[in-house]
């Protein structure tokens, strides 16, 4: 079994001055994010990024830009996503990259790109940064998925440029995964027309694209730039102004010591032989800024922002570079009281643009955790500080274990921040999800926010297992060993099914389908078998399908 460290890990830290594939230009309330993919700079060797097609490297830069626009340029009210290539906006995900990637890489690639598209929708919904897709040419597959994530789509009307989702006829896989849901749920394209659209490899152009609801506006080539500027100005004007000054998202520092990566507040320790990782988050130190102005002055180093940026990096590293680590143990260390003070600052600072952005960001990182296909156990032990915002980690975990030891007291705390500040993909708070079967229970807990010792926590149903000092170590050890022995595929399905009780919405449908369908399609012989459509794409043979339906 392969157990060595990946010699060439994927990294996620980027800065605009090092972007290879995007150009970001800010002009007052309007930002232009231009896709100018460099063919010869793929993330991994072995394929060329022709026709503005993208790979994970391209999307990591997009993710960075979307994030930065919110924190560094809060004055921006509209972001125009355009293409630098004359006749092609974007050909979608690079097929040769997909065809040569492992199953896990493909699925995690789809997941990350969809999270980035959701981050665009999140920026529009919460920060009033409206996105306008300016499709200056052919827009296919993942390129159209990107457009679908925007608030409005303008397509050049030159008799040739079309939007398309050609994955089914060309590749035997699903369109951008989120593409289908966005088509019918977000844009409300009639489902029969969507069905036709998704089987036409060359797509739909011009007036038909408008009448089917696939785009909002078309403009001739000579009027295109004007039309884009006009729509961008209108979108910007319709969105309320916020602060003009942002904070700098400075790079995170980390160091590696054997199999442990340490950031300032977060450490990720890998135990390769056990296939277990421990993610430890240090709570805020005393003296952390508590009012909004001071928090803004601290900027990227303000504890909640920095700690959750570090958690985000750790999660992405786990997903993309450590695919044999099946179980992540979540630990916290720190002072419960300081933790609660910061939590209060986050609650009371609501309305301040920066505090709001931090809250939205923490919510996105927690959703990334919910959507990570690994088991999570929270270990609530002496010295831990699972309070309010950090208690969300325990609520997100598949199980939690709490030590009850009279000599070494330990407590968790529920605060108003557990009441919906950090909604899950389907819009519910983790506390509400936890008590789906006990109507009113979450509300009762939130009405009287407080700390819980092990006995109270068990009684309130806030942890899975409470064990005393005699049993705890063994109980936890057995649980870990048992967990890592189970089928990872079954666990992925199990966890994804259990984590999201309650009604669905478009976001959660996108991810449910992504986790389930693409995981399925990407390993079926019709896609990746010896004669599968994805395997043979660009090769001289045509695919052979097993025509039996399940």
């Amino acid at each position, binding site marked *: 079994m392969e157990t060595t460290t990946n010699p060439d890990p994927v990294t996620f830290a980027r800065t605009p001055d090092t972007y290879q594939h995007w150009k970001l230009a800010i002009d007052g309330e309007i930002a232009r994010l231009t896709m100018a993919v460099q063919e010869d700079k793929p993330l991994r060797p072995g394929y060329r990024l022709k026709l503005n097609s993208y790979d994970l490297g391209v999307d990591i830069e997009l993710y960075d830009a979307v994030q930065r626009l919110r924190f560094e340029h809060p004055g921006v009210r509209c972001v125009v996503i355009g293409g630098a290539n004359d006749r092609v906006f974007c050909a979608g995900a690079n097929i040769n990259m997909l065809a040569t990637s492992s199953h896990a890489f493909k699925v995690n690639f789809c997941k990350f790109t969809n999270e980035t598209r959701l981050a665009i929708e999140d920026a529009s919904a919460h920060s009033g940064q409206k996105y306008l897709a300016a499709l200056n040419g052919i827009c296919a597959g993942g390129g159209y998925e990107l457009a679908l994530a925007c608030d409005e789509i303008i397509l050049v009307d030159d*008799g040739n440029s079309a939007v398309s989702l050609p994955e089914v006829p060309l590749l035997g896989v699903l369109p951008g995964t989120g593409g289908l849901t966005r088509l019918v749920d977000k844009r409300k394209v009639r489902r029969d027309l969507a069905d036709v659209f998704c089987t036409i490899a060359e797509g739909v152009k011009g007036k038909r694209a408008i009448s089917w609801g696939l785009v909002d506006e078309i403009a001739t080539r000579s009027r295109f730039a004007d039309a884009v500027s006009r729509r961008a100005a209108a979108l910007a004007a319709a969105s309320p102004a916020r602060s003009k000054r942002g904070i700098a998202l400075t790079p995170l520092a980390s160091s590696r010591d054997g199999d442990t990566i340490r950031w300032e507040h977060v450490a990720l320790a890998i135990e390769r032989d056990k296939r277990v990782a421990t993610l430890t988050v240090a709570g805020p130190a005393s003296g952390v800024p508590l009012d909004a102005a001071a928090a803004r002055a601290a900027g990227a180093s303000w504890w909640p922002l920095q700690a959750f940026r570090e958690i985000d990096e750790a999660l992405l590293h786990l997903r993309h570079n450590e695919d044999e680590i099946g179980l992540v143990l979540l630990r916290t260390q720190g002072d419960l009281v300081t933790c609660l003070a910061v939590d209060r600052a986050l609650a009371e600072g609501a309305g301040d643009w920066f505090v709001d952005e931090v809250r939205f960001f923490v919510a996105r990182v927690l959703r990334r955790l919910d959507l990570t296909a690994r088991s999570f156990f929270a270990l609530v032990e002496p010295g831990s500080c699972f309070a309010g915002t950090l208690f969300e980690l325990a609520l997100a975990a598949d199980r939690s274990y709490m030590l009850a030891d009279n000599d070494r007291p330990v407590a968790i705390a529920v605060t108003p921040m557990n009441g919906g500040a950090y909604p899950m993909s389907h819009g519910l708070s983790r506390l509400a999800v936890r008590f789906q079967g006990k109507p009113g229970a979450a509300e009762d807990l939130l009405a009287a926010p407080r700390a819980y010792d092990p006995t109270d926590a068990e009684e309130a149903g806030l942890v899975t297992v409470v064990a005393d000092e005699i049993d705890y170590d063994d109980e936890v050890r057995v649980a870990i060993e048992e967990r890592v022995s189970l089928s990872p595929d079954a666990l992925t399905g199990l966890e994804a099914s259990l984590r999201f009780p309650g009604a669905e919405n478009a976001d959660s449908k996108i991810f449910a389908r992504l986790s389930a369908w693409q995981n399925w399609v990407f390993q079926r012989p019709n896609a990746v078998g010896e004669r599968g459509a994805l395997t043979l794409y660009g*090769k001289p043979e*045509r695919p052979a399908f097993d025509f039996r339906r399940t």
Partner: protein
Amino acid sequence: MQLHEKIPNNVNLSQDKRLLRALEKWLPDYLRWWGEAGPTDYQADEIYLRTAISVDAKGWAHFDYVKMPDYKWGIFLTPPEPDRKIGFGDFYGNPAWQDVPGEFRNALRRIIVTQGDTEPASVEQQRLLCNSAPSMYDCRNLFQVNVEEGRHLWAMVYLLHAYFGRDGREEAEDLLERRSGDVDKPRILSTFNEPITDWLSFFMFTMFTDRDGKYQLYALAESGFDPLARTTRFMLTEEAHHMFVGETGVGRVVKRACELMKQDPNEDVRGQGGIDLDTVQKYVNFWYSSSLDLFGGEISSNAADYFASGLKGREHEEQFGDHIALHGTYRIPILDDGKMAEREVPLRNAMNEVLRDAYIDDNQRGVDRWNRMIKESGIDYTITLPSRRFNRTMGIYAGSHFDPQGHPIDAEAWERRKYEWLPKDSDRAYVQQLMQPVLEPGKMANWIGAPDRGVKGQPIDFEYIRRV
């Protein structure tokens, strides 16, 4: 007159209600397009044109005076071959499709639309040329090429109307909506958006660019979709004339240059108002390299798919031994770290290259005939086709630089030397100022030689255009 009487055809048009209805709507739009985008003048004049009135030996080349808007564009397919089988690809040996296979409907439509789009494009590109024709004979040939390109558009539109339902009708409308060089509605392939404003370019276009069309038609003439194969086979009978116009046109410029060289002690052709051989060579370099781009990428998944699916074969597929071509390979020279190296690729992915090979050989035969003419006139000069890597903007050589012999050179050397090889603005301006119309029967502009013979046995000073 009934529509089906206006449109000579061998597709039983009068019985096909659906096709009739589609054409009834399309025909007025087509005539409007011809009026807007066809030759700028001479529409009311009588031109001595060849019109296809049937597919048999006599009928495909019927000569008479006709006003261009009254030209009978017509729909002709070569007669069906009984029990025709698919000649290549994964469906080799299966009966040819008489109807569009659903699986390949979109791909076929794309192929037909892309081919169809080039036909009106070239008419649009050439619409101003009649104002600067070097002779009445040449002007008539231009119109012949134009009406036949128009007929080739008809041929593709027939397929779209007859076999592709509403989508096909919409695509047929779009073919009349796009305009060469229009920034808002450009033609699909960029070469067909370049203006052609001088006759040397027109001859180069018909020599080199139309010859690409010929090879595309050859490849489609093999198609497993029988109506496409039969349509393109008939188009090929007309296409030969376009190449004739190009090859003899350039030949006559060359011949005239040789005459002028011998008349002057310094062999100064330009000084005597001719087009010198160096300029001809530069135009060859430009148009030939641009036409090579039209074949598509050297390594192409589309080409592989089209071959595998039996949609687009090789020129004269019967000359090849292996019609499946699944295990064959093709060696392609690639630029690797500044040096040329060879890469072996699956044959199916190299089908564009196989077609390009045949095209190159064909061009070389024409160039050889020019060179024989130069030699016979006692001049020491050889016109050459540059390497297929020279000045390319599509495929694996795009973005790198090569000299005409195909040796890699760096960007600096390219910038420094490219106008040794390609026409510069002053060359184009020189050629452009020679473009003055000469329309007396039998007279030729000073820069071009007379043709060896007239059209269809008529004398050179025949009145090919009767002005009204």
